[in-house]
């Protein structure tokens, strides 16, 4: 009747870029981490990215997301890291136990260190018709396209002109869908210019200062109503799918359940587990990395994963202070570089505020 329970040195929740890098870094310090992920494949969101990444050689620049994911998974296998897929961590209890639902059944893990690399969820907002079939997150549309090979709709309207909205709009075009337009409430795009231009070159109109009012339809989406913020004019788009790319929210549920202090940073996606520069949360033995620690980019997630593992290894006594400090110095310098550009000034501000308390 009792639940089986297993002791282990380190559990990483989430096999995305942050989690896999945390496991790799832990392996370098001689700690065998167990990586849990509810999906059938490792790599997190990278697995469904078919575009080439920017960044530095440390982060797989020039490669496509799924290639980076495959390399990290292979690296983990070589390093002896066990990745348990289709294994959902259902809860993180006050004693530190993790409740897992996996192919082996339901069981408990009692790790000495836990790295929460649970990623982010798509933000949504309510509007008339938002529960109609055909309304979905842009990430969900991307999963349908790139993982399952299913076209989410024949004619799609994208809401949100950030990187996710622009990239998914382009991939919809590549897959043969028609994109009726990209709607954005702001004056300009927060995404990279190259993504914006690529969509425009394909003849997709981008409507800045426009907002979504409603989705219409009986059995599913048939039209979307969009209003010009400045003129108040309402435009009707005949579409059978409506994708929302209006931001991501850190998945902080496990941390909250564990009793980690939760902080708020709008620039990083909202509520997230408070953590110091070294990725320690307010609860000893619990670390956080990647989008779960504030929504940024995959390369940031990778280095945050490594930072979290360095902190965990140091706390477990597997890394001495000097080696930990050296590794940390390098990783923090790299992160500073990644967050160095003028477009990341809001991230730097939010990080400084978080670190201050």
């Amino acid at each position: 009747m009792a639940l089986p329970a297993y002791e282990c040195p380190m559990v990483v929740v989430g096999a995305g870029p942050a989690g896999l890098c945390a496991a790799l870094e832990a392996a370098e310090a001689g700690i065998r981490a167990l990586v849990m992920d509810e999906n059938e494949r490792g790599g997190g969101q990278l697995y469904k990215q078919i575009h080439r990444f920017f960044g530095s050689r440390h982060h797989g620049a020039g490669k496509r997301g799924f290639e980076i994911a495959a390399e990290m998974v292979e690296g983990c296998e070589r390093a002896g890291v066990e990745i348990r897929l289709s294994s959902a961590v259902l809860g993180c209890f006050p004693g530190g136990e993790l409740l897992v639902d996996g192919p082996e059944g339901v069981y408990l893990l009692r790790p000495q260190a836990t790295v929460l690399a649970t990623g982010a969820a798509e933000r949504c907002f309510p509007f008339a018709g938002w529960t109609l079939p055909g309304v979905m997150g842009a990430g969900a549309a991307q999963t349908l396209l790139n993982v399952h090979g299913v076209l989410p709709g024949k004619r799609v309207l994208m809401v949100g002109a950030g990187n996710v909205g622009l990239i998914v709009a382009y991939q919809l075009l590549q897959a043969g869908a028609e994109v009726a337009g990209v709607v954005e409430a702001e004056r300009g795009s927060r995404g990279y210019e190259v993504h914006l231009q690529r969509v425009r070159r394909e003849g997709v109109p981008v409507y800045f200062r426009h907002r979504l009012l409603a989705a219409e339809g009986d059995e599913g989406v048939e039209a979307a109503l969009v209003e010009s913020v400045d003129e108040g004019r309402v435009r009707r788009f005949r579409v059978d799918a409506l994708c929302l790319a209006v931001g991501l929210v850190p998945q902080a549920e496990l941390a909250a359940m564990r009793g980690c202090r939760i902080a708020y940073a709008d620039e990083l996606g909202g509520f997230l587990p408070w953590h110091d520069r070294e990725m320690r949360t307010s609860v000893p033995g619990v670390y956080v990395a990647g989008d779960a620690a504030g929504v940024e980019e995959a390369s940031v997630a990778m280095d945050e994963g490594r930072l979290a593992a360095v902190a965990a290894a140091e706390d477990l006594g597997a890394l001495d202070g000097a080696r930990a400090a050296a590794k940390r110095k390098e990783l923090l310098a790299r992160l500073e570089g990644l967050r160095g550009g003028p477009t990341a000034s809001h991230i730097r501000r939010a990080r400084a505020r978080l670190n201050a308390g």
Partner: protein
Amino acid sequence: MSEILSSEVVIVGGGVIGAATAYFLCKEGAEVMVIEADDLASGASGACDGFVSLQTKMPGVHLAMALESARLFPSLAEDLEVNIEYNPCGGLMLATSQEQMKELRARAKALKSGGLEVEMLSPAELKEYLPEVGKGIKGGSFCPQDAQVNPISLTLGLAQKAQEMGATILRGCQVENIVVTNNRVREVHTTAGNIHSRRVVCAAGIGSNQIGKMIIVDVPVLPQRGQILVTEQRDPILKCLVSGAEYLGTKANIPELLPTDEEAAKLGLGFTAEQTASGNVLLGSTREFVGFDSNTTPEAMNAIARNAMRFLPWVEDLDVIRSFAGLRPCSPDGLPILGTVKGVKGFYLATGHSGDGVCLAPITGKLLSELVLDGETSLDIEPFSLYRFK
């Protein structure tokens, strides 16, 4: 803080008991202020199931009180503006052994003589209420007067109606002291300032012991943790409340009905199931003394789920989406503590409902309103006096 607050009656606690007391006092035109340390229904009232169960009450005064309370629910459902999801669905208690059947039969007899309708059912007769039960079920008792309600809506609805009738509700306000001079309550000191009042009702649930200490009265209420699982929503699959005889055993401490499994006994495990108006199934529950720890535990979640499958094998196909735990204000004999205290005029107790708070809230509110305003009650509450323990 310069503002001087005053109220004819101050109620400490914004749970279902405090809200019901405020509601009935306001109905009589009293001036009421409710002080709630956190938020309405933030304690046990917001972390429980919706059982309004009569057949689990002890024959005698306990049952008589529950019957009175049950009679008040339909009119509350009508009067409150919030939909309290009151559903007179009836309740089934299942036995897993012939010994339990024997005990349930004896209890049914006693309950019947107390005025309750209870019917004993064979496994074949159960099918009318539950098409599919576990193989080990030997029968059960059905009480058509059992009902269900949404406890959070009930609390909020009562408070909202009271507020509409003039009650003031202070949320996030903690009681720091109760000033007694010349053997009478005079003032309540709170984090929102001092309140002049000659009448204070303690409806503080598990905080009642702490409130009692302020007037040097020992209120023997201990927190008892109950854990509950919430499943995904489904089309109606449960027509009535369902519980196992062991639930009654752990609740009323009936030796014949206690769980025999060691782990189950340690958790105070007893099966309960109800389907809420929104379609989720609530599966319960435990009775544990673990201080003020209101966390859920994986062991209990596992035990509750496994136990539920003994009674209703089909719950195996339901996804559990959430778990929660509430701390029930438990009295030494499981009965509420109602009435005045010796030596302090104007102080009234309405606490210790021990998991019966939702069921007994309407009658508790009504009786307390009578006691505070008239000094006497329509139902004898002497058996619920604090001094029965001495």
